[in-house]
C-alpha cells in the first residue's frame, strides 16, 4: 500500500506534466528538483545512432553478462553429484519448475517454463541490481561534465533495467507473444477463438444460441483486456521499481541538518530499513510478473467442457 501510494504520488506529476504538453528531456528538470528521472537516459547524448543505449540498457547488458557468467560457471562441469553452484542452480530451477507445473499443468509446463523462469530470474536480478551502491549516484552532470559520484546526478551511469518502461513493456510484449504462441499451439486457432468468444458454462440447446451475442460481446471485452495485459504488467513492475528508487533516493537525502557528519550518517541509516523492503519487493515483483503470465497461459489453455466433449467425440 505504501509503495502504491508512493508510486501514484510520483506518477502524478508525470501525468500532470504530460497533460500539460511538457516535453522536457528529463535531464535538467530532474537535476533541478533532485529527483530520479522517470525515464532512462541515453549515455551517449549527442550521438543519434546510439540513442537506444540508455543507462538501463547498459545495466540490462551487465545483468545479462552476469547471468551468463554465473550459469556458465555453474553448469560448465555439470555432474550427477552437483557442486555448490550447480546445486544452487538446480534448486532454483527445480523450485520454479514445480511452481510452473502446479499452475499451468504438466503438459504445458515444458514449453512455458523457460520463458516464465527467465522472467522471474531476470526481473528479480534487475530489481536487486538497483540496490547496489553506485546505482543512480555515479554518472554525469551538466555542471561537472565528467563522470563523477554525488547524491544528485543528471544522467546516472547505472539505472535498474526494470526502472525503465521500455524493458518492462518489452518483457510484457514478449510474454504476450509467448502466451499467444502457446495458446494457439495447445488449442488451435479455432479453439482459441471459441475459448474467447464461444458460450461457456456447458450451455446447450436454445439457451446456448440465445446467449451467443452476449458471449461474443464478453469475448470482445476479453480481447481488450488481453491487449491491455502488457500495459498493466509493465506499469505494475515499472511503478514498483521506480517508486522504490525514489523512496531510497528520498530517504538518503531526507535529513539536511547542515552538519556534514549527521547528513552522511543519516543518508546511510535512514534508507537502511527500506533496503530490506526493496530486497523483498524485488523478488516479489519478479514472482508476480511470472505468476500472472503463468495464470494467463493456464486460463487460455484450459479446455472447457464443450471442447472436451468435442475432443471425446473425435
Amino acid at each position, binding site marked *: 500500500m505504501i509503495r502504491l501510494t508512493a508510486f501514484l504520488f510520483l506518477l502524478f506529476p508525470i*501525468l500532470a506534466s504530460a497533460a500539460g504538453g511538457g516535453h522536457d528531456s528529463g535531464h535538467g528538470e530532474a537535476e533541478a528538483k533532485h529527483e530520479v528521472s522517470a525515464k532512462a537516459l541515453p549515455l551517449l547524448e549527442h550521438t543519434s545512432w546510439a540513442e537506444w*543505449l540508455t543507462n538501463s540498457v547498459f545495466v540490462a547488458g551487465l545483468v*545479462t553478462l552476469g547471468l551468463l557468467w554465473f550459469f556458465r560457471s*555453474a553448469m560448465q562441469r555439470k555432474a*550427477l553429484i552437483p557442486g555448490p553452484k550447480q546445486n544452487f542452480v538446480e534448486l532454483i530451477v527445480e523450485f520454479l519448475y514445480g511452481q510452473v507445473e502446479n499452475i499451468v499443468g504438466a503438459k504445458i509446463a515444458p514449453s512455458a517454463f523457460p520463458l516464465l523462469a527467465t522472467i522471474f530470474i531476470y526481473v528479480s536480478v534487475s530489481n536487486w541490481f538497483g540496490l547496489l551502491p553506485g546505482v543512480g549516484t555515479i554518472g554525469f552532470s551538466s555542471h561537472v561534465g565528467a563522470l563523477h559520484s554525488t547524491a544528485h546526478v543528471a544522467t546516472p551511469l547505472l539505472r535498474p533495467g526494470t526502472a525503465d518502461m521500455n524493458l518492462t513493456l518489452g518483457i510484457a510484449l514478449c510474454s504476450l507473444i509467448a502466451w499467444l504462441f502457446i495458446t494457439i499451439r495447445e488449442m488451435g486457432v479455432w479453439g482459441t477463438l471459441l475459448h474467447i468468444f464461444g458460450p461457456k458454462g456447458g450451455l446447450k440447446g436454445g439457451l446456448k444460441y440465445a446467449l451467443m451475442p452476449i458471449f461474443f460481446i464478453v469475448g470482445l471485452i476479453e480481447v481488450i483486456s488481453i491487449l491491455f495485459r502488457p500495459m498493466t504488467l509493465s506499469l505494475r513492475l515499472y511503478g514498483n521499481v521506480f517508486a522504490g528508487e525514489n523512496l531510497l533516493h528520498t530517504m538518503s537525502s531526507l535529513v539536511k541538518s547542515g552538519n556534514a557528519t549527521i547528513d552522511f550518517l543519516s543518508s546511510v541509516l535512514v534508507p537502511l530499513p527500506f533496503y530490506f523492503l526493496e530486497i523483498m519487493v524485488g523478488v516479489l515483483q519478479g514472482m508476480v510478473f511470472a505468476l500472472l503470465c503463468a495464470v494467463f497461459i493456464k486460463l487460455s489453455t484450459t479446455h472447457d467442457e464443450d471442447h472436451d466433449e468435442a475432443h471425446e467425440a473425435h
Partner: protein
Amino acid sequence: MAILDQLGIDYPKIIAQIIVFGLVYLILSKYAFGPVTALLELRRSRIADGEANLEKIKENLSSSQAQAAAALAKANAEANRIVKEASDAAAAIAEQKKQDAVAEAQSIIAKAKEATELERSRVMDELKRDFGRLVIDTTSKVTGKTLGSEDHARLNKEALAQIAL
C-alpha cells in the same frame, strides 16, 4: 504521446530491451534450464531405476533366502536320515559284534573247560602213577622183598581202589 515521452517509451529502446531480454532467455534456456532439467530428469530416472533395482534385489534376496531355507531344510532332513541310518547300522553292527563276542567268549570258556578237564585228567593219571609207585616203593622197603610184576599190578590196583574218587 506525451505520456510515452515522459516515461521514455521509444521503439528503438523497446527493441534494444527486447533483444537483451531475448538474449537472456536464449542463454538461460541453453545453459541453465535445458541442461538442468535434463540432468534432473536423468537423476530422477536413475533414482527410479535404482529404486526398481532395489525392489528387484529385495525380491531376489527373499527368493534366494527362501531357496536357501528350503535347501537347508532338505539338507537337514537328509542329514537326519543319514545319521539315523548310520545310527541304526551302528546299533546293528554293535549287536552283531556283541553276539559274536558272546559266542567267542562261550567258545573260549568251553575250550578252557575242556583244557582244564584234560589237564585234570592228566594230573590225575600222573598222580595215580606216582601214588602207585610210592605204594610199591614203600611196600618193598617195609617188607624187604623184591616185588614182582604181579605184585606191582595188585598193589597198584588196591591203592587205586583206595583212592578212587
